[in-house]
């Protein structure tokens, strides 16, 4: 199952901030973590992660620090800030509300059946 682009975009910020709650990480590791958490269904173009991270940095939700990787490459690590934690808490509430509302609707109404052989 692939998740729709707009939904991925909307989930990107809370996902990245949430992942950074577990500790500092660099870009590629963040993406790998996203993949693991969603079982591969949450996918976005790798390159798009970095403008997002830079935006979060500009907004003050994360800070970055250049370090070196195990093999001596330059590597930029990101860490969540207090402002980022506040932001994440807020987003969490919003998503809870959305998820809760959706769950109530879906409990009331049966899951729509995908028409496979509608004409037959």
């Amino acid at each position, binding site marked *: 199952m692939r998740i729709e682009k707009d939904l991925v975009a909307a989930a990107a910020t809370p996902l990245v901030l949430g992942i950074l709650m577990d500790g500092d990480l*660099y*870009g*590629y*590791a963040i*993406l*790998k973590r996203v993949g693991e958490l969603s079982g591969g269904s949450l996918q976005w*173009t*790798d*390159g*798009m992660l*970095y*403008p997002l991270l*830079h*935006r979060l940095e*500009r907004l003050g939700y994360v800070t970055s620090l*250049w370090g070196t*990787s195990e*093999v001596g*490459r*330059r*590597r*930029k690590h990101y860490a969540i800030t207090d402002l980022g934690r506040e932001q994440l808490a807020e987003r969490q509430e919003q998503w809870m509300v959305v998820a809760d509302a959706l769950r109530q609707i879906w409990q009331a109404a049966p899951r729509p059946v995908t028409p496979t052989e509608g004409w037959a």
Partner: protein
Amino acid sequence: MKLDADLEAQIDRWRGYVQRRQAIAAADVDELEDHLRGQIDDLLGTGLDHDEAFLVAIKRLGNLDAVSREFAREHSDRLWKQLVLVPDDADTRAPAWRELAVVLGFAVGTGIAVKVGLSWSNGEAGLARNIGLLVFPFLAGYFAWKRRLTVPVLATLLISFAALAVLLNVYPFASFGSTEVLAALHAPILLWMLVGVAYVGGRWRSDARRMDFVRFTGELAIYYTLLALGGGVLIGLTVAVLQAVGVDPGPVLAEWILPFAVPGALVVAAWLVEAKQNVVENIAPVLTRVFTPLTILMLLAVLAVLATAGGLGTVDRELLILMNAILVLVLSLLLYSISARDSLARPGFFDALQLVLVVVAIAVDAVMLTAMLTRITEFGFSPNKIAALGLNLLLLVHLLRSAWLTVGFLRGRHPFAALERWQTRYLPVYGGWALIVVAVFPLVFGFA
């Protein structure tokens, strides 16, 4: 994990490609590269081979246009590539400030040298001969500091500057005689070559370094012009304000501000080129593309006028000097275009246009040579004529070979590098000729 050479080359090419995006800064390229390499390592771990891993990693990184647009949205300021003269990174701040201090030191130094020279010379021709010696050694000094020249190179440079200084001042030139004027005109070429040696950090045999110096020269000219324009506006406004309140700024301007600002700006411009090469790299191809067709039109007009002006023997001296200046300008444009061109790009329309420029320049040069030879047979030799003739012959050889190599490149017989190599190999010839004009001409023509 050690990647193989082929993969490294692919990653390098990708880096070069990404770096050309204005919205993606060098640090971001590093970040993306780290990502790419991480991805490739993991893919290699799953059993893909190098090529496959590279392709998949690139694919996952996404369409570069889209990614670049996303970067641009986040960093719109980058599209303007503001000059960051002193980087904000805490770890690099100290050297940057030190460099600024050194640059300003050399700029003030050359200002003082010119000021002292002005007050000693009292407007005699001696200053014209020595003006380059008052400026260029400071520029070379900046590069000597920047490139951490080795002692032998430094000593060679110092001795060369000193030898030239002695030569220019020991010869008993007749005041404002032709040999003195010629020496004053050609000394800067020699001095510029010495600056070049400092610029390339003593590795003057390397073609690539020489090309860097050509590029630097072109960019320096642009920066210097920009600084001069800005300075001109600033001075003009100040003068207007001062005059409006009844203060005459003329003497202070002529005696203090210009002697410091004009040579000092050269050192500052050199530093700017060093500090922010990217900015002009983006302008250079545009400028050459704008001016190559315009220069062709100008040369054609000149050629038409010369052809209809009647007997070539009557072409006067002023005109010949002007034409020489035009040809030197054309050559500079050619060199600059070549230095700004991506040497791996395939032959295109612009290369053909450049060939047209060279061919028209050859035609103009041929007309000039004919006119000169006519004058020489009619009026005999003079230092000026020999100097002009020599320069024209050198230019002719340079242009002919350039045309030949450009044709070869367009037909796919030579790589572009052959054309580049010809330019960089030929450049020292001009230095040699300048040395002859400065050192030998006065002796041969009795300092007249």
